[in-house]
């Protein structure tokens, strides 16, 4: 597959395995085997310049690991990630590629843990400028920081304060200013609003959208909250136990979800419109990722699973609705879902 003209980021069969074995001595004495956790398994997607790709899933599905692989905080176990044709894998260790580091930035979930409490805001935001040697001289740097703080809706005078003097939402604005300081083009946002109250979340989401319009930014937006992802994303990928089970543009995914897991997630959203439609809570929980079920990892919770699902891992295939989906039932046309709003499941 050759990258399309405007593909900015390409993730191809990315995998990340963590060795969570007990210590060597325990293992030898206890005759235990090595224990490998496949946090991300054969994940592929493209992100086009200027778009927002949302990634949703429950805790432990590997979405944060994908984020960290992209910015180079983890090294890939298999597969490849390229950013504008450059290999991100080289970013993880050593000095890496300076341009890449500048263009790819990350916003973390916890604005209390991601800012150094002993640094003034001006130093926090100026750090990427200094590290990348983007500007010469303190005066130019401070002027740039002032402009950045104003851009994210803070006052230039706030630069002299410490992080503890800001609320959660303001801290997240500081994180965004820091990410933009190196003239980033691509922001990986890992649950950027999950720690915030809903009215503050609205402020941050609005700011992120305004910045995207103004600066032509591209986002990978990771969240467990489907409503938030629906608001920000153009396309959405759904992850389950380290794999992408469905990826489609927003309208398609919400109108005609294909994978039973996607459908389950949509059904689980509390119904704020109070339409009175009954929710069917899905039985079961996410299995232990150390011992994932064979075949399709969703099969123990799936009402449509058959023998093939229990044995064979489904791959992402083009769905009749236009997205891609990894489900034998959909591929075989065993499962035929009515559009989601009708709220009726049909099995043929």
């Amino acid at each position, binding site marked *: 597959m050759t990258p399309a003209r405007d593909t900015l980021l390409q993730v191809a069969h990315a995998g990340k395995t963590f060795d969570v074995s007990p210590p060597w001595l325990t293992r030898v004495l206890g005759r235990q085997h090595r224990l490998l956790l496949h946090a991300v398994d054969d994940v592929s997607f493209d992100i086009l310049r200027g778009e927002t790709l949302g990634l949703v899933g*429950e*805790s432990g599905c590997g979405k944060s690991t994908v984020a960290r692989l992209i910015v180079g905080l983890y090294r890939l176990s298999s597969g490849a990630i390229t950013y504008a044709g450059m290999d991100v894998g080289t970013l993880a260790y050593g000095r890496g590629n300076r341009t890449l580091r500048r263009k790819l930035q990350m916003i973390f979930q916890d604005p209390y843990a991601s800012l150094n409490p002993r640094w003034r805001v001006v130093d926090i935001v100026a750090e990427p400028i200094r590290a990348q040697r983007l500007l010469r001289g303190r005066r130019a740097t401070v002027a740039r920081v002032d402009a950045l703080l104003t851009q994210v809706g803070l006052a230039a005078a706030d630069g002299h304060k410490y992080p503890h003097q800001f*609320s959660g*939402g*303001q801290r997240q604005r500081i994180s965004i200013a820091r990410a933009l300081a190196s003239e980033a083009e691509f922001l990986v946002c890992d649950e950027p609003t999950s720690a915030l*109250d*809903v*009215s*503050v*979340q*609205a*402020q941050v*989401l*609005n700011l992120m*959208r305004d910045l995207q319009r103004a600066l032509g930014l591209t986002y990978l937006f990771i969240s*467990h*909250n*489907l*409503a*938030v992802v*629906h*608001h920000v994303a153009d396309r959405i990928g759904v992850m389950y136990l380290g794999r992408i089970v469905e990826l489609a543009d927003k309208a398609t995914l*919400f109108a005609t979800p294909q994978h039973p897991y996607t459908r*389950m*997630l*949509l*059904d*689980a*959203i*509390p*119904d*704020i*419109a*109070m339409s009175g439609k009954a*929710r069917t*809570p*899905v*039985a079961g*929980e*996410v299995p232990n990722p150390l011992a994932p079920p064979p075949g399709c990892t969703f099969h123990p919770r799936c009402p449509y699973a058959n023998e093939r699902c229990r044995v064979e891992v489904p791959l992402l295939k083009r769905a009749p609705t236009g997205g891609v989906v990894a489900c034998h039932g959909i591929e075989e046309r065993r499962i035929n879902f009515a559009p989601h709003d009708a709220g009726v499941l049909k099995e043929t």
Partner: protein
Amino acid sequence: MTQALLDVRHLRIEFPTRRGILTAVDDVSFEIAPGEVLGVVGESGAGKSLTGAAIIGLLEPPGRVAAGEILLDGMRIDRLSHDEMRRIRGRRIGAIFQDPLASLDPLYSIGHQLVETIRTHLPLSESAARARAIDLLQEVGIPAAARRIGHYPHQFSGGMRQRVVIALALAAQPRLIIADEPTTALDVSIQSQIITLLKRLCRDHGTAVMLITHDMGVIAETADRVAVMYAGRIVEIGPVSAVIRAPKHPYTIGLMGSIPSLVGDREHLVQIDGSMPRLTAIPAGCPFHPRCSRVFDRCLHERPDLIDAGASRAACWLYAAGDRT
């Protein structure tokens, strides 16, 4: 009208500090009828959890109930001694907290903890209490309850642990449960399981619930009435459908608009500028006035009480008769 199960009147919670007294909850009044689910919603620091803690007598010092009264079945419970309160807690008011791991003792099996709770409050023998514990676990949907009863909290997943906590809260068949963010720590699919379970159990047992949460979606699905809190006060209270479909207080209107929705495609969410005031600097007049788009003169000086506004009541001068400017 039947007597309220819980009646909170003009509750004020204060924290004495070196720099003076902070008022965290100010003049909060509400009632919960038997079997009713009252949702209490608000952002962090609004005072919703403190209100819940005051009712079950678990306010951490130096926090204290400075004024007002709390009545359970017509009896004042805010002035009870430590021992008297212990007999009410668990027996007549159950509690469910956000983090199920923190609510369970990691050193004892869940069976031990359930039996202890049951025998503290009910005159049952060890074996009868154990049988009841197994029934409870089955009722909250724990598979193979008879086997699982010997397991320790770490052997359960987050969702299963919260089920155990619910079983504990129901163990002595209280008539009221204070549930403080019971689903916040859980994934969305597990959250819907727990909410469905809580609703069913309370309907079956006729238990009233004070459901404290920041999640309007959970309130919409569960509550009969909802109280919206802001800066230590109730700004709006009413039937859940009225508050959600036709909010009256400008804060509630903003709050509802700021929730991303699956319906429609908006470029921007409604945004309430600024943030909730710190307790040290609660503005005079209506505490929401610096952020309010419909502020007028009276809001700056006079604090509004709850005023009838359509089907609900809102603490907003906009609804004072003949006073609109």
